């Protein structure tokens, strides 16, 4: 029980650090820590497949891509843009209002049941694979098309146009 609250506290702390760190590289490193705490949450929920995918895809692939791009475009401290304090206060107020609205609507639900795992094999690869390739076969194929088009689009966008340069 208490391990959930400890991990939840860590994820909130690291995600605040993500948006408040001055250096973008530090932001990415804190984001990796945040995603690691999410992986622990998945393990606590016994969603083992998602924990591994989160670990490999998010922390291994996506964040390394971020870090690589950031190193490629070589930002130094002087070029780091800073918003005025007025805009910062307005942004924090806006986000705080969103949080208050969500929490207030949560309050209307009342007391909730604890999260209980009825089927221990729910998040395992065996069960998820059966669901994925029976009910969700068409979306799975469509997502492969999406990934292919994203790859082509990324290559097309990132290559230099020989006519304009």
């Amino acid at each position, binding site marked *: 029980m208490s391990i959930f609250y400890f991990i939840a506290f860590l994820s909130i702390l690291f995600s605040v650090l993500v948006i408040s760190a001055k250096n*973008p590289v530090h932001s990415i490193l804190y984001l990796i820590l945040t995603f690691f705490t999410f992986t622990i949450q998945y393990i606590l*929920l016994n969603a083992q497949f998602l924990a591994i995918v989160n670990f490999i895809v998010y922390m291994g692939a996506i964040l390394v891509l971020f870090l690589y791009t950031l190193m490629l475009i070589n930002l130094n401290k002087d070029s780091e843009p800073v918003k005025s304090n007025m*805009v910062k206060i307005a942004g924090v107020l806006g986000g705080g209002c*969103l949080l208050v609205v969500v929490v207030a609507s949560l309050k209307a639900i009342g007391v909730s049941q604890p999260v209980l795992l009825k089927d221990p094999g*729910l998040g395992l690869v065996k069960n998820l694979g059966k669901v994925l390739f029976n009910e969700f076969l068409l979306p799975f194929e469509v997502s492969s098309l999406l*990934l292919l088009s994203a790859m082509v*689009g990324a290559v097309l966008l990132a290559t230099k146009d020989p006519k304009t340069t």
Partner: protein
Amino acid sequence: MESLFKTVQSVPLNHYILLSAIIFSIGVVGVLIRRNAIVIFMSIELMLNSVNLLLTAFSVYRGDASGQVFVFFIMALAAAEVAVGLAIIVMIYRNTNSVDINVLNRLKW
């Protein structure tokens, strides 16, 4: 693994919703207060992940595996989005020599 799961069994569903709402709001604040395009992108990743956690918690709560399959699709979507978005950011940097989003307020350069 079974004993590890036993520890979390008494956490109410409301606390998962609360945690996801807090992290989602932090992501929204990050989009609003930062001007670096890459940090804004990372805030969007934070929001996607908070929704992923909530979907998993609901899936375990209802005993339905569809929620976890949805999380899998969201992860595939996030990978595609990051690939295209970072390519756009690299192109913007090549054209304007900065990743400040205020440079882009006219959508032309």
